[in-house]
């Protein structure tokens, strides 16, 4: 009962719910049991943790559906599993009423998750996922919630729309509107493009421009998916490399590794030459803590210490890892009797080759003003993003780190080359999903 088709599975696997930032509340059952879910246009099932989830730690930390407490529950029992790129869930289908806003969708099939082995769901701020994609990619061919809303005549028009509030100063996260669009949340007119591949909200996209100049690769056409369940913007490496070059992006770990080498490289070398214990070096210079046998990251204890700045603790984790790697590399080089300069140069080069976790790239927070605008051509119109819109700031003050909103994703033809337009794009462009006309529309968000 996996997602249909091999190629579709590839795309689902790219989803990154860990960084999903927007979620809303729904009720399941009578009386309604509340759940916080991600409204995800890139998948099509509804699932929430089940009260019968006993062996997954993630279930302990989230709301669980108790069928015995609902007068409208109907048993189904068919097993189901969904594999995402950052985790998997399994369980069984059930049927009950689902409350969205003031609206009640009757007899909705959904998955009661009895296993959530992934850390993604353990650490997640949301309980489950409500898919707003097409039934074609629905696990178990379950009828998606949105289809039920249309079939039961609960919405005026077969249209839903997203508005994400990217204003960091404001509490309000945004709004999903079922049945139409809220004119308060966009400016001007929407540009509509036809859905080209039913399953995902996929459409044809044209050239991608950096500072107004073509990147060439998509000039002949690419595909794109509007995906509210993904945080960043993902696209072909050929284009992302050009963007990274233009904005000075490098892998997150690469950057921190280079910082460690430039600031502590000589000290680490000196300590190795002085025959200090390699396992203790990073804690001795303050980049890790020591657990009695070896250096360890300082992040975990900081998480439970509410008085500690969470942002800085995360930074220490990667710095500690970078330091540990540098120690091992330098130790190896010292055995070959190389000069100090050659060792530091070599280690610096190794830093550049560290694969970036989750494909994220870091940029210099102080260089935003000099970064170019990046534009996407959709329906013959250019949709621009400024550096402030495509760069995400993580943490505050001295611990602040800036993450590029772009990551590489290579999907071969015929489905690719493909772009995933996640929250970074949808945050700036109010997005309409028109189920009746099979179109997707974008207008500047207000």
């Amino acid at each position: 009962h996996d997602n249909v088709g091999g190629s579709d599975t590839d795309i689902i696997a790219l989803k990154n719910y860990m960084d999903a930032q927007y979620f809303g509340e729904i009720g399941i059952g009578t009386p309604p049991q509340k759940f916080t879910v991600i409204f995800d246009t890139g998948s099509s099932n509804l699932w929430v943790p089940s009260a019968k989830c006993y062996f997954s730690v993630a279930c302990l930390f989230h709301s669980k559906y108790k069928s015995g407490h609902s007068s409208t529950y109907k048993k189904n029992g068919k097993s189901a599993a969904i594999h995402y790129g950052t985790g998997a869930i399994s369980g069984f289908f059930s049927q009950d009423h689902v409350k969205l806003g003031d609206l009640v969708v009757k007899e909705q099939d959904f998955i009661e998750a009895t296993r959530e082995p992934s850390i993604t769901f353990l650490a997640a701020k949301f309980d489950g996922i409500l898919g707003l994609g097409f039934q074609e990619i629905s696990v178990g061919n379950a009828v998606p919630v949105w289809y039920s809303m249309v079939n039961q005549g609960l919405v005026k028009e077969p249209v839903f729309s997203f508005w994400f509030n990217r204003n960091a100063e404001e509490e309000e996260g945004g709004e999903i509107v079922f049945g139409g669009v809220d004119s308060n949340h966009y400016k001007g007119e929407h540009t509509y493009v036809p859905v080209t591949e039913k399953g995902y909200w996929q459409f044809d996209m044209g050239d991608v421009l950096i500072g107004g100049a073509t990147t060439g690769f998509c000039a002949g056409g690419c595909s794109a998916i509007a995906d509210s369940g993904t945080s960043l913007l993902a696209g072909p490496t050929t284009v992302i490399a050009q963007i990274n070059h233009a904005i000075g992006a490098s892998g997150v770990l690469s950057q921190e590794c280079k910082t460690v080498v430039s600031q502590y490289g000589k000290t680490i070398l000196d300590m190795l030459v002085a025959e200090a214990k390699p396992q203790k070096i990073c804690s001795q210079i303050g980049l890790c803590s020591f657990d009695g046998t070896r250096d360890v990251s300082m992040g975990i204890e900081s998480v439970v210490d509410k008085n500690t700045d969470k942002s800085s603790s995360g930074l220490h984790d990667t710095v500690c890892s970078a330091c540990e790697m540098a120690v091992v590399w330098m130790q190896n080089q010292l055995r070959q009797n190389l000069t100090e300069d050659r060792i530091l140069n070599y280690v610096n080069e190794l830093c550049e080759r560290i694969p970036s976790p989750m494909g994220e790239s870091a940029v210099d927070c102080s260089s935003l003003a000099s970064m170019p605008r990046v534009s996407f051509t959709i329906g013959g119109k250019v949709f621009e993003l400024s550096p402030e819109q495509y760069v995400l700031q993580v943490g505050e003050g001295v611990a602040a780190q800036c993450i590029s909103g772009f990551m590489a994703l290579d999907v071969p033809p015929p489905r690719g080359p493909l772009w995933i337009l996640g929250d970074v794009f949808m945050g700036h462009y109010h997005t309409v999903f028109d189920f009746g006309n099979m179109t997707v529309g974008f207008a500047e968000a207000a």
Partner: protein
Amino acid sequence: ASNDGLIRVGLKKRKLDHVDRLAGHIDTKEGELSGASVRNYRL
């Protein structure tokens, strides 16, 4: 629901932070942790 017949569901948002991102990084398929992750993150 409102007068205009639209059904609105408010969304909450959260701020990305280093700890959340790193929790994502140590995640692997089927929830199994690689040796490197266990080593790096003391799990």
